């Protein structure tokens, strides 16, 4: 995954309103009005958040329907998860080797 895409994904997720929107969309597609309802912010503000999410590829918005419902796109989330998992695997493998190293040193001292 390209660094720019990861940056966009994480930057898009780094906002509580946008995460709430994604949580709502995990239940099914929704219009701007439906998404704005739980928040005390304006529809234009919600639309700006949707543009950020759309730019990160986290949602898709229908071009045809009058109210342009949004729906969740999970691929960037999957890629972000995979990035973190690969990092975790790297450290876990290192710690296995550190453990083996300490055993070898310990045996040498005995």
């Amino acid at each position, binding site marked *: 995954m390209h660094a720019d895409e990861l940056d*966009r994904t994480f930057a898009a997720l780094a*906002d509580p309103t946008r995460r709430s929107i*994604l949580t709502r969309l995990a239940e099914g597609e929704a219009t701007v009005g439906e998404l704005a309802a739980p928040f005390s912010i304006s529809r234009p503000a919600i639309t700006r958040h949707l543009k950020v999410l759309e730019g990160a590829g986290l949602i898709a918005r229908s071009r045809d329907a009058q109210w342009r419902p949004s729906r969740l796109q999970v691929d960037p989330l999957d890629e972000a*998860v995979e990035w973190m998992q690969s990092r975790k695997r790297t450290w876990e493998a290192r710690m296995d*080797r*550190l*453990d083996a*190293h300490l055993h070898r040193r310990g045996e040498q001292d005995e």
Partner: protein
Amino acid sequence: MSDSTRVADREVLITRIFDAPRERVFEAWTDPGAVVDWFGPGHMTTERVHIDLRVGGRYELTMVRTDGSEFPVGYDIVELDPPALLVLRSDPMPEHGMTEPTVVRVELHDHGDKTRMTLVDGPMPGAEHAAAGWDAAFDKLAARLAG
């Protein structure tokens, strides 16, 4: 714990018990002759380990693949309290998806005559823009996607 929960954590967290006293585990992290023995993956060798063990010093090494290509890694030492604490801040590596530094925090605690190590590596790229921590809403989303 689901895989997705780890993204909500923003960080990689690893806890390990090592059958050795803290001094020896700390030495394995900070003695170049020991670091070459474990840092690189199995298919790579670790060479040219340079550790200037002081706050503000550098922690550098080069991993070499079997085809001879090199993968240099560098950190600044930002906190140091032997044999309990080592905090490293990585150099950005934009070609590997790391446009911002991450911080690796290694804490060593006595665990009987063994050592309990916690390692935290993070935050994820882009997370420096976060105005607030990752809240319950995103944890819920991650759990739902995992389910």
